């Protein structure tokens, strides 16, 4: 209870809670984590993220970190990259991973789904032109495979190519031989991952208690 009151006392927490849907305790925990990451500064930069030891062995960390600095993920129709983010941005990006509430209408569910997929899409679409091109997709797969050494590069290329062909076949269906599939648009992306229950998968448990001391 004490935690709640002190949390509510913090300026701006109410705002943030409304905006992101996190509870005060969660915001407090995340704020603490934010401070821990930023070494008590007001903003986070990329090198702060790189300092997280557990993240070091994540093959796609570069893209994930970029996602935090991507204006598109801030719910504000912005574009482009920023160099440093404040706590609010941090929280907004985190809120993409909030578990859905227990009772949702079908429409809400669809919205949540769209939002989460949009995040994923933005992560792939690095140049922000609305399509995931073959190049971009290859890059992702390559990074995924980057841990498998020399073998990775070739495999990644062929996997990406194959996946792209598959995408073309699913989303375009009928193509003339000289037609060229320039990339996955968001609409296609939605269609492709239709069976992928992202709304029930893309979420993590945000605890109310502070566990950040346990993980460095």
């Amino acid at each position, binding site marked *: 209870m004490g935690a709640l009151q002190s949390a509510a006392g913090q300026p701006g927490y109410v705002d943030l809670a409304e905006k992101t849907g996190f509870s005060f305790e969660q915001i407090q925990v995340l704020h603490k984590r934010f401070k821990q990451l930023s070494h008590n500064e007001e903003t986070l930069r990329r090198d702060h993220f790189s300092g997280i030891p557990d993240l070091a062995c994540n093959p796609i960390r570069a893209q*994930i970190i970029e996602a935090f600095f991507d204006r598109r993920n801030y719910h504000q129709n912005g574009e482009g990259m920023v160099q440093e983010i404040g706590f609010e941005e941090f929280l907004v990006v985190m809120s993409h991973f909030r578990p859905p509430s227990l009772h949702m209408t079908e429409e809400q569910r669809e919205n949540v789904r769209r939002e989460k997929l949009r995040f*994923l899409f933005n992560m792939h679409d690095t140049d922000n032109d609305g399509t995931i091109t073959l190049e971009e997709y290859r890059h992702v797969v390559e990074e995924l495979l980057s841990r498998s050494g020399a073998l990775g590069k070739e495999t990644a290329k062929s996997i990406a190519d194959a996946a792209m062909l598959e995408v073309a076949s699913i989303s375009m269906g009928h193509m003339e031989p000289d037609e060229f599939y320039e990339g996955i648009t968001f609409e296609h992306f939605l269609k492709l991952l239709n069976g992928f229950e992202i709304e029930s998968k893309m979420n*993590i448990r945000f605890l109310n208690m502070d*566990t950040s001391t346990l993980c460095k």
Partner: protein
Amino acid sequence: MASTWRFALFLSVLLLVSRGPSLANEEAGTTEPSSGHEDTSSSSPASGHDTESGHDTTGDAGHGDTGHGDTGDGHGGGPITTLPIVTWRWHHVSTPYLVALWILVSWLCKIIIEANHHVTSVIPESALLICFGFILGGMIWGADKVQTFKLTPTVFFLYLLPQVILDAGYAMPNKLFFSNLGAILIYAIIGTCWNAASVGLSLWGCHKGGAMGDLDIGLLQYLLFGSLIAAVDPVAVIAVFEQVHVNEVLFIMVFGESLLNDGVTVVLFNVFDAFVSLGGSQIDAVEIIKGIVSFFVVAFGGSLMGFVFGLLISLLTRWTKNIQIIEPGFVFILGYLSYLTAEMLSLSAILSIVFCGICCQKYINANMDERSVETVRYTMKVLANGSETIIFVFLGISAIDKEIWVWNTGFILLTLLFIFVYRIIGVFFLTWILNKFRLVPVGFIDQVIMSYGGLRGAVAYGLAVMLDESKIKEKNLMISTTLIVVYFTVILQGITMKPLVTWLKVKRAKVSELTLIEKVQNKVFDHLLIAIEDISGQIGHNYMRDKWKHFEDKWMTGLLMKPSARKNRDHVFSVFHQLNLKDAMSYVAEGERRGSLEFVRNERASVDFKKKFGDEFSEVMPDIMADMTEDHSSVSDVRDPVPSVSLDMHEQTMKGMRETEGINSHHLLQQHLYKGRKQHRHRYSRSHFNVNEDENEVQEIFQRTMRSRLESFKSAKMGVAPPKKITKHKQKEQQQKMSNGKTPDKGKSYQSGDEDFEFSSEGDRASGYNASGDSFPMRVTYRAGAGIENPAFMPDIDSMSTVQIPPWLAEAEHDSSTVAPSQRAQVRLPWTPSNLRRLAPLRTSSRSTDSFMLADTPVRQQMDNLPPPPPPPYEEDDVQM
């Protein structure tokens, strides 16, 4: 229908033949009073032993006469007067013989059931099998006037159950299972305890209230009964839920619960059994605490035992490189040993074998050869499915027995009511608690299905039979109640499950395999979630999983995996290894596809034939056409030879061909040799044989088409010019071919001229996987175009023939649609689009052929239109190779 009757007749004959002493009785060695056969009472001295029953009464069995005078002992009977040439030694083989016969009979039942899909789509297989059991039981009863065969606990628990459970453990989706482990454990432990206690107490209460009349059952006995009837049965759950494809979370909840609650059931049963023996007055707090302690020991001990054995298997498979043949055997033997060891130590055997399967699956799949893995997988399925069938049939048979049936309306109906109601209450209450903690809550509809999916099965029956009659006076009532509960849940709830699932619009499992992009996305996803947990500093499932993975990579894989296998599974690689395998497969398949494209072109030659002899033969078998050739060989002499050397030859080159008739005939001979074999294959395929199984053949076809492709390329490049050269080249090869001695009918081919060649391509077509007789008329029009190399026609031809189902396959589909899709899928292989990697994830859907079909269609349609480039560029590719 007629075939069904024939089967039934056959079954009854088998039954009569095999009707003898109870195999179950014998194996169990139970004290069941030996059945007094009226026809054997005089001759058989040993009661528990095999007796010569049945031979006299069978009549129709040809050996009835030999069985007469107890000479059946074969060796060392009475003094022999003369050397017997053959002796009747039934005793010698009776036990294994009966076992084998019963297995056969049960499986035959399955054949009959599966023969008609309209029925199985409504009524689940398990229910039908039980009904078949009733019929079989009735036959035995009718003949013996006593139930000589029944499911005994020993047979069930020691021989039948482990097979099903090992498969369940081995095929367990680990990630799904462990991420829902908390919920599963809650349901399995608390849910089962709740069910046992509530059912037992309520029944006792009703008894006290006088709802069941005069029964000699005390509170403890009621609790004992409650504990044996409480557990959801894994076999029944698998059988029913396999046919309704509910979403994976729901499935794993019900399934996991049914597996894990065994520990609870065994403990509860043992504890209450002991309590009943002790008597009410002896039970004090110490005993109760002992009971609780024993629960933990039994459950965790069993799991640990399985874990140890799983590691043992994994370790062993590191060193089985040189004995690859029996490599798969280790999995089964050690799995079974883990079950028996746990049983020996009175730990939970089911938990043991489940965890054994769960632990070893990853490592053995990495350590063993691909083929061994495939063997293990398949054998698991054979055993599990087979014993599941036997279990259900015997559940049915066991019911037809006057001795066990004691009717007490109150007791039976109340039991049914209570297990149904308390299951619902338990599930809803526990889910309500769980949903407070779950990331993704269990929905209301899922809860309904979970409560409704509380099927009881053979485990409960086995336990009921194990009850001690001296201590529990109403044992038979309990057995019959258990049976009724089993029938009620398996048959009634099983039948209504599917409509209910449809009606409630339960989220279904995806039918198709994951597409490649989804797989990649999944992987991205895992890393993303781990990263976010890392960044946000939360310790969640993903964090734990990541840590476990690190631990596993560091220690367990080093110990348990072959160095070579270890190298092959770097983090992400585990998924991509499979993709690579599929890639390799697709590479081969692409070769075949090119081959098949070649056949399409070949067909123009046969179209030509059709033109000559009329379309009416298009539906006729090739062997008939072979006759035709001989008749018309004179005609063909007059005619210009058709381009028979290279099927892709331009028309211009035909002129050049004339000079090389002699050489041609050699070539024709070679082609003809195909025809002979193909014809046979074609005919076999009518009776549902696999058309395209011969690897050599495929190989041969592939090589041949590649060759002719090369040649046609050459000729295309060099224009009209060098047919001579080509044919010479051909000739050489033909001679090689001939020296291989693969010519079934040489003479014919020599004299029959070029038509023969057309047959051969007809034959090719037959095994050329796809084209059908029906497609001929269309082809004729292409022929009119006559531009053999005209790429414009290619897509059309593709689409025509892919849409059509070859006649023999179509027929097969009518007959037994189980076989047909897979066969068709196989047959279609070569038709997959140019870049097969795209198909890769779909291709190896080993589980359901339906899904394969579904997934396959869009891609195939698309393939007609998508780049797979028209012939000419292709050929350039080939040459560059």
